Protein backbone atom coordinates (compact mmCIF):
# COMPACT_ATOMS: atom_id res chain seq x y z
CA UNK A 1 0.00 0.00 0.00
CA UNK A 2 3.06 2.21 -0.01
CA UNK A 3 2.08 3.92 -3.26
CA UNK A 4 -1.01 5.38 -1.65
CA UNK A 5 -1.01 8.56 0.36
CA UNK A 6 -3.51 7.09 2.79
CA UNK A 7 -5.63 9.20 5.07
CA UNK A 8 -3.60 12.35 4.41
CA UNK A 9 -4.87 12.20 0.84
CA UNK A 10 -8.46 12.31 2.05
CA UNK A 11 -8.27 15.14 4.54
CA UNK A 12 -9.72 17.57 2.00
CA UNK A 13 -12.85 15.46 1.41
CA UNK A 14 -15.23 17.91 3.04
CA UNK A 15 -18.06 15.36 3.27
CA UNK A 16 -16.20 13.38 5.94
CA UNK A 17 -17.83 13.71 9.36
CA UNK A 18 -15.42 14.04 12.27
CA UNK A 19 -16.08 12.05 15.46
CA UNK A 20 -14.02 13.15 18.42
CA UNK A 21 -12.33 10.63 20.70
CA UNK A 22 -9.55 10.45 23.25
CA UNK A 23 -7.72 7.78 21.24
CA UNK A 24 -6.23 9.85 18.45
CA UNK A 25 -2.99 7.96 17.82
CA UNK A 26 -4.06 7.11 14.29
CA UNK A 27 -5.73 8.94 11.44
CA UNK A 28 -8.79 6.81 10.73
CA UNK A 29 -11.36 7.05 7.94
CA UNK A 30 -14.40 4.77 7.65
CA UNK A 31 -16.19 4.44 4.30
CA UNK A 32 -19.68 3.21 5.14
CA UNK A 33 -23.32 2.92 4.08
CA UNK A 34 -26.22 4.08 6.25
CA UNK A 35 -28.14 0.88 5.41
CA UNK A 36 -25.38 -1.55 6.40
CA UNK A 37 -25.50 -3.24 9.84
CA UNK A 38 -21.82 -4.17 9.65
CA UNK A 39 -21.06 -0.46 9.21
CA UNK A 40 -23.11 0.39 12.28
CA UNK A 41 -21.22 -2.20 14.29
CA UNK A 42 -17.94 -0.72 13.07
CA UNK A 43 -19.03 2.74 14.22
CA UNK A 44 -20.31 1.32 17.51
CA UNK A 45 -16.89 -0.25 18.12
CA UNK A 46 -15.04 3.00 17.35
CA UNK A 47 -17.45 5.02 19.51
CA UNK A 48 -17.36 2.55 22.42
CA UNK A 49 -13.57 2.59 22.40
CA UNK A 50 -13.37 6.38 22.13
CA UNK A 51 -11.39 6.31 18.88
CA UNK A 52 -11.23 9.60 16.96
CA UNK A 53 -12.22 9.00 13.33
CA UNK A 54 -13.81 10.42 10.23
CA UNK A 55 -16.60 8.66 8.35
CA UNK A 56 -18.85 9.07 5.37
CA UNK A 57 -22.06 7.33 4.29
CA UNK A 58 -21.65 7.02 0.55
CA UNK A 59 -25.35 6.26 -0.02
CA UNK A 60 -26.19 9.65 1.47
CA UNK A 61 -24.10 11.47 -1.16
CA UNK A 62 -25.30 12.38 -4.62
CA UNK A 63 -23.86 12.81 -8.10
CA UNK A 64 -20.29 14.01 -8.51
CA UNK A 65 -19.59 14.09 -4.79
CA UNK A 66 -20.54 10.41 -4.47
CA UNK A 67 -18.37 9.54 -7.50
CA UNK A 68 -15.42 11.45 -6.05
CA UNK A 69 -15.65 9.64 -2.70
CA UNK A 70 -16.23 6.27 -4.38
CA UNK A 71 -13.06 6.78 -6.46
CA UNK A 72 -11.20 7.51 -3.23
CA UNK A 73 -12.55 4.42 -1.44
CA UNK A 74 -11.81 2.34 -4.54
CA UNK A 75 -8.09 2.91 -4.00
CA UNK A 76 -8.33 0.89 -0.81
CA UNK A 77 -11.08 -1.56 -1.70
CA UNK A 78 -11.76 -1.98 -5.42
CA UNK A 79 -14.66 -4.34 -4.67
CA UNK A 80 -16.81 -1.50 -3.30
CA UNK A 81 -17.83 -3.36 -0.15
CA UNK A 82 -18.54 -1.70 3.17
CA UNK A 83 -17.40 -0.93 5.78
CA UNK A 84 -13.89 -0.13 4.58
CA UNK A 85 -11.60 1.25 7.27
CA UNK A 86 -8.42 3.08 6.29
CA UNK A 87 -5.73 3.76 8.87
CA UNK A 88 -2.82 6.17 8.53
CA UNK A 89 -0.77 5.41 5.45
CA UNK A 90 -3.22 3.04 3.82
CA UNK A 91 -3.60 0.11 6.20
CA UNK A 92 -7.05 -1.26 5.28
CA UNK A 93 -9.62 -3.45 7.03
CA UNK A 94 -12.48 -4.61 4.82
CA UNK A 95 -15.66 -5.53 6.66
CA UNK A 96 -16.10 -5.17 10.40
CA UNK A 97 -13.41 -7.51 11.73
CA UNK A 98 -13.39 -6.81 15.46
CA UNK A 99 -10.12 -8.67 16.06
CA UNK A 100 -8.34 -6.56 13.45
CA UNK A 101 -9.91 -3.33 14.69
CA UNK A 102 -8.62 -4.15 18.19
CA UNK A 103 -5.18 -5.10 16.94
CA UNK A 104 -4.72 -1.99 14.84
CA UNK A 105 -6.47 0.67 16.91
CA UNK A 106 -6.38 -0.23 20.60
Amino acid at each position, binding site marked *: MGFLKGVEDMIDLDCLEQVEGTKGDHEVVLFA*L*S*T*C*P*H*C*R*HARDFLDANDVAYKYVY*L*DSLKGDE*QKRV*LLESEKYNP*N*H*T*FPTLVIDDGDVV*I*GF*REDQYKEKLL
Partner: protein
Amino acid sequence: MTAAEGKKVDCTLLLEQLKQDAEAGGYSLNPDPDFAFELAQGIATNIERYGYPLCPCRLTGGSKEADLDIICPCDYRDPDLDEFDTCY
Protein backbone atom coordinates in the same frame (compact mmCIF):
# COMPACT_ATOMS: atom_id res chain seq x y z
CA MET B 1 -40.57 4.49 -10.69
CA THR B 2 -41.26 0.81 -10.07
CA ALA B 3 -44.32 -0.51 -8.21
CA ALA B 4 -42.27 -1.15 -5.05
CA GLU B 5 -40.30 2.09 -5.08
CA GLY B 6 -41.43 4.64 -2.51
CA LYS B 7 -43.81 2.24 -0.72
CA LYS B 8 -43.27 1.54 2.98
CA VAL B 9 -41.93 -1.97 3.52
CA ASP B 10 -42.93 -4.04 6.57
CA CYS B 11 -39.57 -5.15 8.05
CA THR B 12 -41.07 -7.99 10.06
CA LEU B 13 -42.71 -9.52 7.00
CA LEU B 14 -39.57 -8.96 4.94
CA LEU B 15 -37.42 -10.63 7.59
CA GLU B 16 -39.70 -13.68 7.60
CA GLN B 17 -39.50 -13.84 3.80
CA LEU B 18 -35.70 -13.54 3.89
CA LYS B 19 -35.54 -16.30 6.49
CA GLN B 20 -37.73 -18.63 4.42
CA ASP B 21 -35.78 -17.90 1.21
CA ALA B 22 -32.45 -18.48 2.95
CA GLU B 23 -33.56 -21.74 4.55
CA ALA B 24 -35.06 -23.01 1.28
CA GLY B 25 -31.60 -22.60 -0.24
CA GLY B 26 -29.82 -24.31 2.64
CA TYR B 27 -28.60 -21.06 4.24
CA SER B 28 -29.46 -19.39 7.52
CA LEU B 29 -29.74 -15.76 8.51
CA ASN B 30 -27.41 -14.28 11.08
CA PRO B 31 -28.30 -15.97 14.42
CA ASP B 32 -28.32 -12.59 16.19
CA PRO B 33 -31.99 -11.52 15.85
CA ASP B 34 -31.15 -7.82 16.25
CA PHE B 35 -28.55 -8.03 13.50
CA ALA B 36 -30.94 -9.93 11.22
CA PHE B 37 -33.63 -7.27 11.81
CA GLU B 38 -31.15 -4.49 11.03
CA LEU B 39 -30.27 -6.31 7.83
CA ALA B 40 -33.97 -6.44 6.91
CA GLN B 41 -34.29 -2.73 7.71
CA GLY B 42 -31.39 -1.96 5.35
CA ILE B 43 -32.93 -4.02 2.56
CA ALA B 44 -36.34 -2.43 3.23
CA THR B 45 -34.79 1.04 2.90
CA ASN B 46 -33.29 0.03 -0.43
CA ILE B 47 -36.60 -1.39 -1.69
CA GLU B 48 -38.22 1.92 -0.76
CA ARG B 49 -35.41 3.87 -2.44
CA TYR B 50 -34.83 1.85 -5.59
CA GLY B 51 -37.73 -0.59 -5.91
CA TYR B 52 -35.64 -3.74 -5.49
CA PRO B 53 -33.79 -5.45 -2.61
CA LEU B 54 -30.34 -4.04 -3.17
CA CYS B 55 -27.76 -5.47 -0.76
CA PRO B 56 -27.59 -3.02 2.17
CA CYS B 57 -23.79 -3.34 2.23
CA ARG B 58 -23.29 -2.41 -1.44
CA LEU B 59 -23.65 0.91 -3.23
CA THR B 60 -26.05 1.20 -6.15
CA GLY B 61 -24.57 1.62 -9.60
CA GLY B 62 -27.52 3.84 -10.51
CA SER B 63 -29.92 1.40 -12.20
CA LYS B 64 -31.42 -2.04 -11.72
CA GLU B 65 -29.45 -3.30 -14.72
CA ALA B 66 -26.21 -2.09 -13.14
CA ASP B 67 -27.19 -3.63 -9.80
CA LEU B 68 -28.25 -7.12 -10.92
CA ASP B 69 -25.19 -8.70 -9.29
CA ILE B 70 -25.83 -6.98 -5.93
CA ILE B 71 -29.53 -7.67 -5.47
CA CYS B 72 -30.02 -9.83 -2.37
CA PRO B 73 -29.07 -12.66 -2.32
CA CYS B 74 -26.20 -11.27 -4.37
CA ASP B 75 -23.55 -12.93 -6.52
CA TYR B 76 -20.94 -12.33 -3.82
CA ARG B 77 -22.74 -14.13 -0.99
CA ASP B 78 -20.94 -17.46 -1.35
CA PRO B 79 -17.41 -16.05 -1.80
CA ASP B 80 -18.02 -13.74 1.19
CA LEU B 81 -19.29 -16.64 3.31
CA ASP B 82 -16.19 -18.63 2.37
CA GLU B 83 -13.84 -15.77 3.25
CA PHE B 84 -15.59 -14.00 6.13
CA ASP B 85 -18.30 -16.41 7.40
CA THR B 86 -20.78 -13.65 6.66
CA CYS B 87 -21.76 -11.68 3.58
CA TYR B 88 -20.88 -8.02 3.05
